[in-house]
């Protein structure tokens, strides 16, 4: 039992090392993400889409998983998630620059369409919602094969409106699957506000109707996110079934580099977002608890910047795909 004086992280059994790892993962993700916007403005990256503001829930979730054993069916905001699972900054930048060695798709897809077999990050499309069903299928196969694997998927608040999302939750409930659906609820689907997306405050209210567990969590709070996710993973591993986590997060950037959120979000709302920075919040916690010092933080930021610099330099110099390879990999034999 946690005593009154016990820290939040100690109550969760989290060691300082792990806290540092998670902090560093968030910082790196933000650094990579910011850089891609710079590249976009420089005309070097035709399209970017961001995870800024969504880092806490993603990094927390990744740290409850076993990379290479548990599965992720991601969505396009999952840069922090994928980095935390082991994707390198360089691998991501190869996609941003549309280079042949992009491990996700050989630059066939837009950047942020993640998929890396070695990390069990399953290839994803742009079609919102389809990945959730795949995650159910993965979980069904794990269960059928008697394997101790957890299948995790992410989606936005808008994505939950898709029929596929419902069909997935229903399957997960029927078969009590080792499946976790994380809804990253940032109040918008491009410009469509929450009130026009659903008639309730949070989709976590839908869990009961499927026979799955529901968790509504502040997705900007790393420790709260970690707690909810860990409970979900334990539930999955214990054969107690699926969990729907709805994590409230803040979308810091426009939807993508093709969007301008000032067209539809009030200025005051945009300013208020900044107070919801998950990285700031965790940094303050770590400083307050003495887990990191200002100097540590400075070092981490510098390391991450250096990592990004190197990734960009390497990726920019890499080869572009060859036109004739357009015809490859339609089928196994071609």
């Amino acid at each position: 039992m946690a005593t009154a004086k016990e820290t939040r992280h100690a109550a969760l059994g989290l060691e300082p090392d792990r806290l540092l790892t998670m902090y560093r993962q968030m910082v790196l993700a933000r650094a990579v993400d910011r850089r891609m916007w710079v590249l976009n403005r420089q005309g070097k990256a035709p399209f970017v889409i961001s995870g800024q503001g969504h880092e806490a829930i993603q990094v927390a979730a990744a740290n409850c998983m076993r990379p290479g054993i548990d599965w992720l069916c991601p969505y396009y905001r999952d840069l922090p998630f994928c980095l935390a699972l082991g994707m390198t900054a360089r691998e991501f930048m190869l996609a941003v620059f549309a280079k042949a060695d992009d491990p996700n798709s050989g630059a066939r897809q837009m950047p942020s369409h993640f998929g890396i077999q070695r990390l069990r990050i399953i290839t994803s499309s742009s079609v919102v919602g389809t990945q959730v069903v795949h995650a159910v299928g993965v979980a069904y196969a794990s269960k059928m094969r008697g394997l101790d694997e957890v299948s995790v998927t992410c989606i936005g608040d808008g994505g939950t409106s898709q029929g596929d999302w419902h069909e997935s939750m229903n399957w997960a409930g029927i078969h009590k699957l080792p499946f976790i659906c994380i809804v990253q609820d940032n109040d918008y689907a491009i410009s469509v506000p929450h009130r026009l997306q659903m008639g309730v405050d949070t989709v976590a209210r839908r869990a009961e109707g499927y026979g799955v567990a529901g968790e509504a969590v502040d997705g900007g709070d790393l420790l709260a996110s970690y707690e909810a996710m860990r409970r979900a993973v334990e539930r999955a591993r214990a054969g107690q079934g699926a969990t729907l986590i709805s994590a409230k997060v803040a979308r810091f950037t426009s939807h993508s580099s093709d969007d301008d959120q000032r067209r539809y979000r009030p200025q005051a709302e945009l300013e208020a977002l900044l107070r919801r920075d998950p990285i700031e919040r965790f940094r303050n916690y770590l400083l307050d608890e003495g887990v990191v010092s200002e100097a540590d933080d400075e070092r981490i930021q510098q390391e991450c910047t250096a990592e990004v610099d190197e990734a960009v330099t390497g990726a920019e110099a890499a080869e572009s795909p060859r036109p004739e390879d357009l015809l490859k990999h339609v089928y196994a034999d071609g």
Partner: protein
Amino acid sequence: MAEKTLLQGIREALGEEMERDERVWVLGEDVGKKGGVFLVTEGLYDRFGEARVLDTPLAESSIVGVAIGAAMNGTLPVAEIQFADFIHPAFDQIVSEAARIRYRSNGDFSCPLVIRAPFGGGVHGGLYHSQSVEAYYAHVPGLKVVIPSTPEDAKGLLKSSIRDPDPVMFFEHKKTYRLIKGEVPDGDYATPLGKAAVRREGASLSCFAWGLMAHYCMQAAEELEADGVSVEVIDLRTLKPLDKEAILGSVRKTARALVVYEDNLTGGFGAEVAAIIAQEAFEHLDAPVVRVAAPDVPAMPFNKPQEDAFMPSPERIAAEMRKLAAY
């Protein structure tokens, strides 16, 4: 008359039809305050309010299904699918429902509905923001399929589509939105569905296309002009109903047919055009019916070298024209 973009033609048609007939309304993802991801519906939200310019949940099947229901209850919905690539979740509502309302009720019900969607590539859209989907729908009895390629047609054909008593699929090539400019007549006019447009008369061969490819064919034809080869370019404009007479008439004149489309070769709508010619104008043909289309790979990659390799280019079209003319 004023010079406008194709996108403006569409926007004007929407605004004027909504003004003219209060039954007309617009629904789709981001069509409201944002004015659509391509800004096609810009300004409509302020003019007509949220109920008639409705931002929907992210769920295409319901966008179409709700429009169907509303069409059966005295309104004229114009549904926007944000990208044609994302129309597939609505496939069932379009094919099993909208297309058959009239037929299955033996004429008791009807479904006056327009579904607009930007399609096509060449804009770094990658596998899921570049596709051509017209072949799926041009196969479906009960639907009409319209693809404008000029600002004038965009406006006039959309007006006809909105006034049409049956469901119309209205596909807008996204690369033409701002690239293609042209005169748009002042005042109200409607361009009839089911009529092809001869964009260029010619004697040596007939070239059939739609959307962006109609422009590429024009470019190629101009190139061939220099070599003394006169190419007739026909923009089909509506694939369903198809202007068979225009197709056959042209082939009877030139004896050579080239069909150009941006979609994958196999089973693309160009196959139908070629098959019609092969059956109904066989005696007039002096050469094989040639198709130029994209290769049979899932879609257009994001990276530029492969995107370019996928798209039929004016150069490739010109080369095929030359070969065919010389056959």
